[in-house]
């Protein structure tokens, strides 16, 4: 499960939006700037807040959402230990469970930060797999530099809906969710689901 590392935010956004690449790049740029800026400004304060109460900023939320979408779109089930080349941790039942039971992004970001599970073999395997991804091809093709107005893969992506607003469903049970988590922004519908969410999902994707 290594989608996050493979997909840069710029690419992810350009695959989804109709925005031209320069716009997308600019948007991604501001996003990063905001992240680093707010991080720099609030660094002293962030330390004083307990980890459990920390809010995830918009950029991280967007990144996590993009990673989740990307995992939905993935054709190649990257399951450690099942690719035939003696993948790591295949014998560790508990690890496999944790890796897969929750939604992809959580462990991915976690893994990135800690970096303890990446052995050399796994890293090499990942690199080899990355060369065979569509995003890698997309980057190499430079179609984002095509003259303006040329219909390409990037311009063919449908834009957001103009007819309906995003609806909100509980991330735990799937029913209509009037509430959003103050910390991570995911939706929940009731106290019960809120508890499940806090226990299993909330902030599991970051830090």
């Amino acid at each position, binding site marked *: 499960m290594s989608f996050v590392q493979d997909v840069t935010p710029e690419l992810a956004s350009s695959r989804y939006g109709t925005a031209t690449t320069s716009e997308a790049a600019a948007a991604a740029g501001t996003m990063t700037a905001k992240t680093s800026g707010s991080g720099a400004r609030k660094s002293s304060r962030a330390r004083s807040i307990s980890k459990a109460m920390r809010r995830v900023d918009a950029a991280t939320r967007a990144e996590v959402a993009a990673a989740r979408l990307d995992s939905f*779109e993935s054709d*190649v089930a990257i399951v450690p230990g099942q690719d035939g080349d003696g993948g790591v941790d295949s014998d560790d039942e508990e690890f496999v469970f944790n890796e897969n039971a929750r939604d992809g992004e959580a462990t991915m970001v976690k893994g990135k930060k800690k970096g303890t599970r990446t052995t050399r073999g796994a890293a090499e395997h990942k690199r080899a797999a990355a060369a065979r991804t569509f995003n890698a091809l997309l980057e190499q093709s430079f179609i984002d530099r095509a003259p303006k107005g040329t219909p390409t893969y990037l311009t063919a992506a449908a834009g957001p809906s103009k007819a309906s607003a995003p609806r909100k469903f509980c991330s735990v049970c799937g029913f209509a969710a009037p509430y959003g988590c103050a910390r991570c922004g995911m939706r929940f519908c009731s106290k019960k689901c809120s508890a499940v969410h806090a226990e299993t999902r909330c902030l599991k994707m970051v830090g």
Partner: protein
Amino acid sequence: MGPHRARPPHRVALPPARADVTVVVDLGAGTLKLAFAEDGDGTTPIAVPNASARARGGASVSGSALAAVTDVNGLALRRAHDRGYCVNWELQREVLREALEGDLGVDARKCDLVITEAPFALPATREGLDAMVFEDLGFRRMLVATPAQLAKRYADRAEAEDGRDAGDLCVLARAGVVLDVGFSFTHATAICGGVEIARGIRRLNLGGKTLTNYLKELVSFRQWNMMDESVVIEDAKEKACYVADDVMAELEKCKVKRGGAVRREYVLPDGIHILRGYIKDIDEGKKDKNKNGEDEGENDEDDEDEDEDDDEDFGAKGPKRGKKKQPKPPMAKALKPAEPDHQVLTLVNERFMVPETLFHPSDIGARQCGVTELVTQAVENDDLCDAQRALCYLDVFVTGGCSLFPNFMERFERDLRPLISESYVIRVRRAKDPILAACLGGVDLARDRKFFEENAITKEEYLANKASIREAHQSLEFHPSVRTGRLRAYAREPTKFDANRIKAECMKLTPTNEREIERASE
């Protein structure tokens, strides 16, 4: 042949290596569809999974052998495609070769080929296809078309099956929209005068695979960890999911205890007694309830629900469609009564919330519009005039495996109407077999020998002009100026209609009472 491989059911009595034929291949990321053009209209293409996997015995299997693997638990598929485009040509070549030689029994070097390629394929992908077809497989001639072009070709021919005749305006003008709800993504393509409108091709990054992965995530979070079980979940999705008329109303229905009438139990394959999952028949339990005069919607029916485990009707709902077509082995049936407590996957609101993402991708956080708006985005581009748009809306042709969800078409049609100006008449139809439509269109196209030969590129031509063909791919021209074997118009000689004729025709199609209202308002 290990113990986990059964003989593919349909690989019987094929004639030995055919030559001098035209093979039609719909190179889908999920399923390969193959047919012979010479077999004509009545042919049924072969559909095999476009993937390879390592069965538990250790041998790598692909194609129809993969479809026949008995133990699907934890089967990890390797696909040559990523996001709908081929990225691993070595794997693709092997899968295709096995399908051609094993399933079709042809010698590629003595055959012509019609093959599909997703629109806006990257230069590297196009080069890869050329190299695979001519250098590795060695076909004599190749014609590359998009699935939308071939589906439209099929749509124009399939007159009888849905009430269109050859004199229909859209057929004559070679115009319409094709909505292909595929495995990796969904494309809406506006076609006018037989030619795809470049700006009228819109892509939604959602397809059957996305839905499978979404269901996998939901189920893994709520019930069993199924993150490795793509094959099982895909099967569960195909058998259990449907499109709701009104999501909010349907959700309300699920709020009764244990999911009420919406709940279905998918019996998971255990690899021994149950080789393919199936939906448990819960009608029996219902009958009991009705006998007792109880209302279905009530909340106090736990005991009755438990009873189902004992007197279930096994295998009542076989696979209706999809890639895993072979019938359930009789052995499974014989052993069933001895297995009262197998694992089940309970699906309640997942059943319709998963396909719902096609209509509202924002439900999973995708910042794209749904399939209905996709069609309007495709038609309402700047390259089409008003009359042409009217023509396009007259033939909205839906294809692709995801359109097979029950109630998909009804919902699609109902949601589409309010998005489009009432001055347009909309006619929506679906391919008889949405999975095979493009392949059948290819068969039709290849049977027009002259048309095929005019558009195809020969191996000699390819080898002589390799550099300029590569340049044409790199240039990203929508219609390459060099002969690359890419199809420009899917049919010959479209008839041109003036705006008045189209308007008059639309008028004819409007129901009488609406016309009356219109006149009254004038």
